[in-house]
């Protein structure tokens, strides 16, 4: 786990290698979600009728989930602060809280989707719903992936190992939060 090349320890760009890499990951994710949401916006602006379909999304659940993610971002950055103070176990506790937030988000979404499918709003019902499930689904996959990686980082942090990774998974997590900050109005509010 710690047999890393000398190359990894250099920082001619003025920042640690891991952090530099995570920002490049964020850059690549911006264009993925950007392409998907851009396509959605083009269609949405073109079809006034979609606001009728969008009216059937549940803004209360959406708001709750937004609150959950915002709060999980808070615990993620508090984990970062703890890691900077070299307090691995504390950072791990905050990371576990963040993971709990992510898990809550996904579980709530599962119930939300179950309810919507029950009402006939399936992914094939019309193109609005296709975008809804695809965009929110792609986002949810990123939440799940984040939770898994965060679990690994938290386990290491608990033993005061690889504390720099707490910040890195946090940056990823905040990005996932930012995507949802835009998804929420696009899918739930604009009616």
């Amino acid at each position, binding site marked *: 786990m710690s047999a890393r090349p000398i190359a990894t*320890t250099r920082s001619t760009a003025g920042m640690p290698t891991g952090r530099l890499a995570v920002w490049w990951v964020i850059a690549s994710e911006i264009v993925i979600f950007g392409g998907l949401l851009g396509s959605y916006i083009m269609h949405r602006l073109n079809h006034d009728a979609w606001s009728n379909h969008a009216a059937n999304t549940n803004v209360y659940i959406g708001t709750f989930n937004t609150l959950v993610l*915002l709060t999980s971002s808070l615990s993620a950055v508090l984990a970062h602060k703890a890691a900077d103070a070299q307090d691995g176990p504390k950072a791990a506790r905050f990371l576990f809280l963040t993971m709990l937030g992510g898990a809550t988000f996904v579980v709530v979404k599962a119930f939300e989707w179950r309810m919507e499918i029950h009402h006939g709003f399936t992914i094939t019902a019309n193109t609005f719903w296709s975008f809804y499930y695809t965009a929110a689904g792609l986002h949810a996959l990123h939440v799940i992936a984040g939770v898994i990686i965060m679990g690994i980082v938290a386990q290491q942090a608990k033993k005061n190992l690889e504390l720099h990774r707490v910040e890195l998974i946090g940056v990823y997590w905040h990005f996932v939060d930012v995507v949802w*900050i835009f998804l929420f109005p696009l899918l739930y509010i604009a009616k």
Partner: protein
Amino acid sequence: MSDEHHGESHQGEHDEHGGTHHGNYVKVWAILVVLLTISVLGPTLEIKIVTLLTAFGIAIVKAYLVAKNFMHVNVQPRFILYLMATCLVFMLLFFAGTAPDVMEKHGDNWSKLPIDPSIEYDPHDAHH
């Protein structure tokens, strides 16, 4: 981007990350929650411009707050900000080049009318 060899550094303690820049995160969170509330209440007034401002304007503000205060974009080396901005600009470029086609409802000799009117049918489309 310096020429010098920064030496072994996992934690980045040599750079601006001295650990003292951690601000009041709970305060930022509270602001975000307030903004969220406004963005949900605004559209209930059903005035289009208010909806746009509160739903999307606030989204931009919230994203800015998360990027600045949680992701610390403002203390990273400058090129990180430029990189993020460049990606966003390219997404605008993509939208600008694609939307004229995808959003065009009719041309000189054609109109984009779904064959099955019960799906996606907007009564205003047919009359152009």
